[in-house]
């Protein structure tokens, strides 16, 4: 376990059992299982098109599942209505692969955007304080009035992370947080993910192709292969595996 991190194995925050998701005849997830505990970071690796992003989009309710059980913070995602889903989403942050910053808004407006509908959760704290605090958490307080087009790839990822953090989520879903970044910036982002886990005791699922990112961020790793959680263990144990599909990721 990473220093400074406390994982409560008695408190599952995400429980997935026998999850199925298809697009037409393309069966992407075929009975996937996962349990994420409070304070734990799980890295999910798999080939392109194996359904990693589909998995976290199902968790956040952007995609509906075909079959199975999907519980997030004690609430069954397929069964809750739109209003309850919106409330749930204030506790679950989503970091998009391409950052997904709103092009027409400044960094400040990007960060203020999630607060428009969910101000009651953080009532009493001035918006400006929340914005500044979130940007300070990712080391970008000076970028508050910049436009997304003025930011580098790494800065965009950090701002997107600040936008996620502003709602003070309990769970964060990272969709390829280091994709498109150079190794140095990628490592900085990976360390930032750990820092957030340690400081806010968040649980996270990190979807990644980047072995370095998985090594730094994961408390546990899952290999998603052929629509199922093919195997799961720590990074170091999987790195020693002699199983061909697992070895393929580490060589």
């Amino acid at each position, binding site marked *: 376990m990473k220093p400074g991190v406390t994982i409560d194995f008695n408190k599952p925050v995400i429980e997935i059992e026998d999850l199925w998701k298809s697009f037409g005849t393309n069966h992407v997830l075929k009975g996937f299982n996962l349990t994420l505990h409070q304070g734990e970071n799980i890295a999910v690796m798999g080939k392109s098109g194996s359904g990693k992003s589909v998995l976290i*989009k199902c968790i*956040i309710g*952007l995609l509906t599942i075909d079959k199975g059980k999907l519980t997030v913070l004690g609430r069954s995602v397929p069964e809750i209505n739109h209003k309850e889903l*919106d409330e749930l*989403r*204030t506790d679950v942050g*989503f970091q*998009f*692969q*391409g950052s*997904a*910053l*709103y*092009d027409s808004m400044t960094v400040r407006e990007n960060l203020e*955007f*999630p607060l*428009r*509908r*969910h101000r009651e959760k953080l009532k009493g704290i001035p918006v400006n304080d929340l914005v500044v605090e979130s940007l300070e958490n990712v080391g970008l307080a000076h970028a508050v009035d910049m436009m997304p087009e003025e930011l580098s790839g790494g800065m965009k990822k950090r701002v997107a992370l600040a*936008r996620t953090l502003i*709602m003070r989520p309990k769970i964060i879903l990272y969709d390829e947080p280091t994709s498109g970044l150079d190794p140095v910036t990628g490592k900085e982002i990976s360390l930032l993910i750990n820092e957030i886990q340690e400081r806010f005791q968040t649980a996270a699922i990190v979807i990644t192709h980047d072995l370095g990112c998985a090594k730094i961020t994961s408390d546990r790793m899952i290999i998603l292969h052929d629509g199922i959680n093919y195997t799961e263990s720590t990074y170091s144990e999987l790195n020693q595996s002699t199983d061909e599909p697992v070895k393929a990721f580490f060589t």
Partner: protein
Amino acid sequence: MLDRMKVYFFETGQMSLFGWRFIKEFLLPPYELKELLRQCYLIGNKSLGLVGATGFIMGIVLTLQTRPTLVEFGAESWIPSMVGIAIVREIGPVLTALICAGKIGSGIGAELASMKVTEQIDAMEVSGTNPFKYLVITRVTACIIMLPVLVVFSDIISLSGSALVEFLKGKVTFQLYISNVFTYLQFSDLIPSITKAFFFGFAIGIVGCYKGFTSKKGTEGVGRTANSAVVISSMLVFVLDFIAVLITDIFYDL
């Protein structure tokens, strides 16, 4: 051929449902007034130059083209009323709508398609904002509000262009020109024109938003979306104009 027909009817059905969803959700809270005002500014203010320039040219060209024939028949004094009626009833609304279909329709389509490709629409949904309310209702409503304003603006500029030609060629003063225009032009001519503009605005907004929202094939799809938004909304402008003229004709006959 059958497959293409199927796709065509499916697309038409989906677009109609999209339009119906706008009508259903239009009055329901939450209201995105700030974004609506921003869109009104973008759609209205930023189209003024283009609409004004084309309107002015159209007024000049129309007067220059009709003048020789009417002069030959000694009907020179009919130019203001004839040009006025043509501009207010038909040319102003249709020309403005076509320009807006090109500028606004393609802009909305490309913007939303690009937002979809870069997952900004998903990010909006995840942050608890209804993207349909925030992006579609505001843009379509802004089109519905601003199109009639732009049409009236275009009419005024076109008549100014026409008046300028009459002043230079026929020594007709601006006051006399306007007086002649309003001798024959009735308030009832303005109502169908403005009503048409509302529907043109609705069609341009809905097509642009629908195409953007349903854009596929990544960045390549952004260009295609902008293109098809212009083609479909321009065609819809003519279809709606045809229907409007038929309906207006019935009222004139009564």
